[in-house]
């Protein structure tokens, strides 16, 4: 430093790194909140420390987290995906049509189940690409581009099934939603795997760095040689694929597919989890683990209130409060 320090004296802030309460709170605030919530529940909620409670909460939160991971990546590029709920409905409507053999004759039930896993997710992936195409090639703003499928997507699912409820009982297929390994729901393992993979990707890979660069400053990213359009295409593709998986989980769990209800309001739940988790909504800074924590917080607050006799409607108001509080705290830390 000495020989180069010609024009500026060293800045005082760099001399003594002090403990900053605010930045500490911003950094670990969501973890602290989660820990506090668990402690409060251990103290006041009867039968909280049971497998039963854990499993109930995990099943409630899995679909939101899986969709939230895709949403995190999309938001990290500075976009948004409103179509996730509608895509879940499409995947949810397609899968039973396939394994019940209503779309085309099946050579064997096993093939039907395999196709029921693959095809719906493939379809939602393609629709995700379609979102990306609207955004990158027609240069439509993400909120409008994905609004198209938000409006039309559920309609498509309803038209497929004519709005009817499809009930089924097929344990092999429903393993994705009902199966357990060591007493823990299979979907929780799936969720953890997806979260871990996405978090690793965002941190360690070139693609992750490109996502954050595009969200941080798109014009600069393009001039630095980053293929902006292809990066965006891929995040919407991932968001589509993950929505499809979440759709399958939801119908498997319910043993029924209702195109009117699967994934309803999911876009907002996922965005709320992302926001509470600490991802910057304007893009450029994102945390997938944070989204997991955010979803857990929202779920636990709701559970706490319900388990203690507060009506569900009041829990909605509490959820609103958490979102505002979390985002406000993050803003304080940025100053």
């Amino acid at each position, binding site marked *: *430093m000495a020989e*180069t*320090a*010609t*024009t*500026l*004296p060293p*800045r*005082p*802030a*760099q001399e003594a790194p*002090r403990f900053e309460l605010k930045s500490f709170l911003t950094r670990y605030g969501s973890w602290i909140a989660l820990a506090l919530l668990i402690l409060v529940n251990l103290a006041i909620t009867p039968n909280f420390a049971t497998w039963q409670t854990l499993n109930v909460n995990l099943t409630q939160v899995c679909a939101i987290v899986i969709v939230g991971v895709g949403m995190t990546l999309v938001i990290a590029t500075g976009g948004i995906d409103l179509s996730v709920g509608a895509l879940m409905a499409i995947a949810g409507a397609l899968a039973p049509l396939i394994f019940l053999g209503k779309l085309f004759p099946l050579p064997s039930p096993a093939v039907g189940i395999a196709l029921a896993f693959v095809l719906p997710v493939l379809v939602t992936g393609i629709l995700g690409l379609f979102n990306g195409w609207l955004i990158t090639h027609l240069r439509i703003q993400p909120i409008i581009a994905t609004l198209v499928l938000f409006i039309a997507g559920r309609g498509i699912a309803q038209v497929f099934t004519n709005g009817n409820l499809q009930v089924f009982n097929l344990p092999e297929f429903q393993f994705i939603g009902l199966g357990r390994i060591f007493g823990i729901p299979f979907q929780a393992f799936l969720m953890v795997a997806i979260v871990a993979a996405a978090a690793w990707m965002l941190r*360690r*890979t*070139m*693609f992750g*760095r*490109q996502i*954050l*660069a595009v969200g*941080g*400053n798109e*014009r*600069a*990213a*393009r*001039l*630095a*040689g*980053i*293929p902006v359009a292809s990066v965006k295409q891929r995040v919407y593709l991932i968001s589509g694929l993950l929505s499809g998986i979440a759709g399958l989980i939801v119908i498997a769990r319910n043993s029924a597919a209702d195109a009117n209800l699967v994934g309803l309001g999911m876009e907002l739940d996922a965005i709320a989890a992302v926001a509470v988790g600490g991802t*910057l909504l304007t893009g*450029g*800074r994102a945390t997938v683990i944070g989204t997991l924590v955010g979803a857990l917080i929202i779920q636990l607050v709701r559970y706490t209130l319900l388990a203690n006799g507060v009506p569900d409607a009041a829990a909605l108001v509490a959820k609103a409060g958490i979102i505002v509080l979390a985002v406000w705290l993050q803003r304080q830390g940025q*100053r």
Partner: protein
Amino acid sequence: MAPLLSMHGINKRFAGIPALRAAELVVEKGEVHALIGQNGAGKSTLIKILTGYYAKDSGEIVFDGKPVTFSSPQEAQGAGISTIYQEINLVPYRSVTENICLGREKRRFGLLDWRAMHAEARALLSRFNIDIDVHRPLMAYPTAVQQMVAIARAIGFEAKLVIMDEPTSSLDEREVEVLFGVIRQLKAAGVSVIFVSHKLDELYSVCDRVTIMRDGRTVQVAPMAELSRLDLVTTMLGRELTQVLQEGRKADDTVDTRKPILKVQDLAIGRRVRGVDFEVRPGEIVGLAGLLGAGRTESVRAVFGADKPDTGMIRFAGSDKAMTEPADAIRAGMGFCSEDRKLEGIIPDMSVRENLTLALMPQLARRGIVDEGRSREIVDQFIKRLGIRCSDPEQRIRELSGGNQQKVLLARWLCMNPKLLILDEPTRGIDVGAKAEILSLIRELAGQGLGVLMISSELEEIVEAASRIFVLRDGRTVAELEGDAVNEQSVMAAMAHGHESNREAAHG
């Protein structure tokens, strides 16, 4: 006579870091007062405190005989302080009239009287000899006109004090003269002006007194006439300037016969570029000179593949395949530092390290996974080599000063080992010290065989650095200057009325 404005003992900290320490500023009635200092010296903070954009931590402000504390720009405006900011702060989609009159609209029967407002806007602009259609949206007009609109707006408020924060950065010389005329008009009418600028010529030609700031403190106040340029710069930087002034002249002037690395012929893009030719040889610094709107930036963006040219040939490293994306140009061995660091250069939330290795990433990654160890090595090496001052490579780039950000962006390209580096206004908004460092670095790199194509609006700088200059005017190359012809007079002559004969003369 009591001064119009006196700011005394102003302190301000941002997140614990002091930005102003007992800063002082006194402006007399009817004087043009220069406020200067390096970037980060606290000029902008002081001004924003005066206009109520920030709240001061302590200190007192007396304006027009009364102690004041404005809590918003609106209040300051109401009290008679108008401000023209460095970046044009107007609303591009709205009409010229709205941009001038918003905030003091004319009304009839409680509703807006558009006819009276249009008339007023026209009248104000006519003081600058500008006659435009005020109904049209502001963004329909070039930057210089927009700047004039901003000034017209500020003056229209019948202010007692007009603050101009680098108002000339987007004006050409004629427009600067018009602006100075208006400043003298204001002065004659008893209005005071605070004038912030990095350009010494301007300060000496229009200002009465000067306040010099450094590190958040006011270090000197003096009449302009009693302060030599050298004293002024020395006080501003707080050190002896010998290194800065003793820059070596450009490399040897022997005629270079090496084959050009870049050759551009008959380039045309829309209406802005209609016939641009230039070339760059390895190891040579080539300057592109011209007034604003001459088509310099547009031309180099096309070379880099950022915009699509209509016609023309661009041959780079022996191939004239068109670059359709910056990524192609980068792969071929080009680097491009854009004009606007904030808008098109840095990724503010990313660290110095991530910003520096952004373009290098494809080479740093194996099967898509970034090799963090190597990235750290490279970054450490460049931080040392370029003297980038940051607390840690993981520090966010937006916390760095403009000069250091620019060095990181230079390093972003240098670590790629490019064959050609395109620099669009590489020293804009950078303090004098860092400017000299960056220019000598560019020279050193060229000495090692890198071709450099540099755009600069500062004649002094471009003449100093470049060994060959192409002058553009109205979208055409009008002169190529080489050897002894590279001097400010001939560049200016070519910019003003250059034609083909200049070209011949320069070669002869």
